[in-house]
C-alpha cells in the first residue's frame, strides 16, 4: 500500500508515501499540519504525476536541511515548496498543499529506520480510504499540471510529463 524509499545520499533517512481517497476531514488535517501536529507533509495528489516526483522533492528538502539552506521553516513545508516550479512559498502551499475541500491526500513522511508506529499514527488521523500510492497517476490533473509547470508542446514530444516536471523542480533555483 504505502511506498518506501531509502534516500541513498542520506543513509538514515527513509521516505514513506501514503495515499488516501474519499477523505472527509481535509480541513481538519490542514489545520493540524499548520499547527505542526502531523509529522508529515500533506500534498494535494491531483498535482502529482508520479511518486518519483515526491521523492525528488523530499531528497532535495533533506539535502537543504542538512546544509542549513532551506527556504521554508520545516522539512515538511520544504518538501511541498520543492514541488512547485516557482519560488513563491505561499503559492506553493496553496497549489501543492492540501486544501479544505480536497477529497484525496498524499502523506509524505521522512523518518529513520522502519517506524511503523509513525505510519499507523498518521493514517489513523486521516478520515479516508488508503489506496496504493501508485494510484496517484489516476488522480493527476494533467491539464493543470501542464499549465502550472508551463510544459511546452515540443517538450512533451522529447520526454514524458514526469521528465518535464522533475527537471524544473531540480533546476528551479538557477533559472
Amino acid at each position, binding site marked *: 500500500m504505502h511506498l518506501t*524509499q531509502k*534516500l*541513498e*545520499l*542520506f*543513509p538514515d533517512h527513509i521516505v514513506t508515501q501514503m495515499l488516501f481517497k474519499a477523505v472527509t476531514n481535509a480541513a481538519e488535517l490542514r489545520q493540524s499540519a499548520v499547527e505542526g501536529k502531523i509529522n508529515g507533509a500533506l500534498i494535494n495528489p491531483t498535482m502529482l504525476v508520479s511518486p*518519483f516526483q515526491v*521523492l*525528488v522533492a523530499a*531528497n*532535495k528538502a533533506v*539535502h537543504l536541511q542538512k*546544509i542549513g539552506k532551506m527556504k521554508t521553516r520545516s522539512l515538511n513545508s520544504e518538501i511541498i515548496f520543492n514541488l512547485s516550479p516557482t519560488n513563491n512559498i505561499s503559492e506553493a502551499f496553496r497549489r501543492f498543499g492540501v486544501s479544505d475541500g480536497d477529497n484525496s491526500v498524499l502523506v509524505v513522511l521522512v523518518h529513520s529506520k522502519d517506524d511503523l508506529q509513525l505510519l499507523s499514527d498518521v493514517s489513523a488521523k486521516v478520515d479516508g480510504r488508503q489506496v496504493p500510492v501508485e494510484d496517484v497517476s489516476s488522480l493527476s490533473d494533467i491539464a493543470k499540471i501542464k499549465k502550472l509547470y508551463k510544459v*511546452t*508542446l*515540443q*517538450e512533451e*514530444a*522529447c*520526454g514524458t510529463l514526469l*521528465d*518535464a516536471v*522533475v*527537471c*524544473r523542480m*531540480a*533546476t528551479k*533555483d*538557477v*533559472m
Partner: protein
Amino acid sequence: MALQEYLSGAELLKQGAEARVYRVEFLGRPTIVKERFPKRYRHPLLDEKLTHRRTVQEVRSILRCRRAGIATPVVYFVNYNSHCIFLEDIVGSLTVRDHIASTQQSGSCPEVELGHLAERVGQILARMHDEDVIHGDLTTSNMLLQLSAEDGDSNLVLIDFGLSYISALPEDKGVDLYVLEKAFLSTHPNTEVLFEKLLKSYAASSKKSPAVIKKLDEVRLRGRKRSMVG
C-alpha cells in the same frame, strides 16, 4: 561526508580533466552523477567561481534545450556544494562516435544509414541554435543514440553542456559548428560528404542559418577557434 562514501562505492565511468562521471542508482532509478571535483592547480576562489558557473550553465542549458524539444538527460538533483549533477542515465545507448565507427566497419550500407543520421543531427543542432543555445563542445562523443525497444527507432540525445552558453550571435553558432566539423573530420576519416549532408540538413531546418553558414565559412578561412569580437 555521506556523498563521498556514496560515490566511493559507485561505478566510475569516466574521469576527464573537468569531472568524474559515475553510474549509480538514485531514488530507485539508474542515474549518472557528474562530479566537478576541485582543481588544486587553480586559485581556490577562482576554482570555486568557475566550477559553480559551469555547473549552473550546464543545468540551465539542459532545461532550455528540453523546453525546445531537444532530447537531453533529465536533471534529477543538483548539489551546489560539491558541484554534483544527478542526471538520468540514458540506458541502452551508445555514442554517435562509436555508432559511426562500427557502422563504417561492419554496416551493409553505411552511406545510407549514416546519411540519415547526419540529417537528424543537422536538424537537432538547427533547433538548438534557433533557441540560441551554444553547446560549446560539439563532438560525436557528446551525442548519444538510444535504441528504443518498441519500434526500433532511435533517439538522439545531446549530453555534456558544461561549456554551453546562451548567444544569438551567428559567429558563436558558426564556431559551434566549426568545433563539430573539426572533431568530426579528425575522429572519423573520409567523412567529408557525411558532414556536408549534416550542414545541408542544418541549413534547411534553421530559420537563421544563412548568417551562421556564412560565418562558418569565414571561420574556416581564418582557421581560428575563437572569434575576437570587440
